[in-house]
């Protein structure tokens, strides 16, 4: 069954969109990532104009992270204080990212920047996570504790910078500076790549700040909810590229998928959680590597500038 999308200006199969967004929603609920980094390339692959795909996915991510936020809120696995710091840093980063985005677009190198950043980010982050997950799995097999425990009184040096704040829910007492700095970087990357940034935020909070996984996921979803709500409004007002019908379809599939993902996350142990997330991120990165390295069968591509629509 096909439905015509008024903004994307093409018909699309309802069942396919529901299935696709359901699968991505499951992953997003499982890992606490927005899922935009998977959904946006998939929609572009289905011939939806990139600007419409990015803007509409923002709306979908806002909706599905709303579900996640409420679920984690009820389970008291959401640190509002930490979330607030992340949101403020994220806004600063987003503004910087949009400025960079527009200047690269003027130079005509935007696509290259996006492709290269996808490749480097995803392969490096995915590779590091995979390495770490395998190493700790090996340690478990050798009978040692799988993860180096945080010892009382010891902490990585960046936590000891000035302006230390106590985050009760996260069981964290650390300086605000590195946390806000991380949020700025993620906001910047998110604005340039059109992704929420959860896939960077989640591992970074786990590795650099040793925050419990469940709290990281809930708090990351909260940060994504706020930034993606803002992004949807920005896209709707400045580009008019949000397709409400596509967004509705993506939401229906996404929120249902996210529910099952959230359930599955509770039954997943930490080690396999990290291994799976690492493999997922790495495989997306490798997909972009293949696209860059393999000689294209058709060297030409035709672009309809969005302003002409």
């Amino acid at each position, binding site marked *: 069954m096909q439905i015509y999308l008024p903004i994307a200006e093409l018909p699309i199969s309802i069942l396919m969109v529901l299935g696709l967004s359901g699968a991505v929603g499951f992953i997003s609920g499982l890992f606490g990532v927005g899922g935009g980094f998977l959904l946006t390339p998939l929609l572009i692959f289905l011939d939806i104009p990139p600007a419409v795909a990015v803007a509409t996915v923002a709306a979908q991510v806002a909706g599905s992270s709303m579900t996640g936020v409420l679920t984690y809120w009820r389970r008291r696995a959401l640190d509002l204080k930490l979330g607030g710091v992340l949101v403020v840093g994220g806004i600063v980063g987003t503004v910087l990212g949009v400025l960079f985005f527009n200047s690269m677009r003027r130079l005509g190198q935007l696509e290259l920047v996006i492709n290269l950043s996808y490749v480097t980010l995803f392969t490096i982050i995915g590779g590091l996570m995979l390495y770490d997950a395998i190493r700790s799995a090996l340690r478990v097999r050798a009978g040692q504790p799988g993860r180096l425990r945080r010892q009382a009184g010891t902490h990585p040096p960046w936590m000891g910078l000035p302006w230390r704040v106590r985050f009760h829910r996260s069981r964290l007492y650390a300086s605000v500076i590195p946390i806000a700095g991380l949020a700025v970087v993620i906001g910047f990357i998110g604005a340039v790549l059109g992704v929420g940034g959860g896939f960077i935020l989640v591992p970074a909070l786990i590795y650099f700040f040793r925050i419990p996984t469940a709290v990281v996921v809930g708090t990351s979803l909260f940060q994504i909810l706020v930034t993606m709500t803002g992004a949807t409004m920005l896209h709707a007002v400045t580009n008019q590229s*949000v397709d409400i019908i596509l967004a509705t379809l993506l939401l229906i599939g996404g929120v249902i998928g996210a529910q099952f993902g959230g359930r599955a996350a509770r039954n997943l142990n930490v080690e396999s959680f990290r291994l799976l997330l690492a493999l997922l991120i790495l495989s997306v990165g490798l997909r972009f590597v293949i696209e860059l390295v393999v000689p294209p069968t058709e060297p030409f591509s035709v672009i309809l500038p969005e302003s002409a629509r």
Partner: protein
Amino acid sequence: MSRRLLILAMFLLTALAPARAETLIASISSHQIQITSNYTGDQLTVFGLVERDGRTASRGDPYDLVITVRGPRRMLLVREKERLGPIWINRTQRRFPDSPVFLSVSSNRPLSEILSPDTALRERIGLANADRPPPLSFDVDAPLARFQAGMIRMLEEKGLYAENERGVTFLSGTLFSAPIEVPATAPTGPYEIDIVLYSGGVPLARQSTNFEVVKTGLEQGLATGAHERSFLYGLATVALALLLGWLASVVFRRD
């Protein structure tokens, strides 16, 4: 002497007259394609008659018909991937301002059999010629031609450009019809149809008509809403997203 002049004049008339001797009468099944929620493309039929008057000399060559449909014009950007070290990136690009986003050329037999390449170029017949501006100089711009060929190939793949060499059917010697496929991805806007009658490679008569593709109903309402009340549209989308998100957490709540 005067008799000879008369014969000459009559000969000249019959030689020149063909341009006026045949008249093309053509129409189209619909002048508007409406996009509704279940729109998946549409088909129009161009049909018509080659009208001959009593003075028309009988021709040795059969009639040929070429129908060119040009869609709304947009700026097209064509990029070419090139090798840079180990990776392939878009390095060069060309702009094709004011290019039709939809182009369909239908004829009753292969274009190469209907008219010579020179005539096709001059008459702007065929996918490659339909939108080529008249050459201003004799310099052959090889990269431009390559980019244009690439563009046509890509758009043909998307179904937006099509050359159908059996697309026109003569129902009788003078009565013809031709289906025009408009894919769902064809843009909204005005479409021009040019119908040219040939015989022996010489154009005899022309006719043009047009149609438009428009959004209607809900599709139109949402599209204009997105552009004219973009803030409200954005608020509505966000509200819908958050509402659906909340609804899901209520529906699926177990504890």
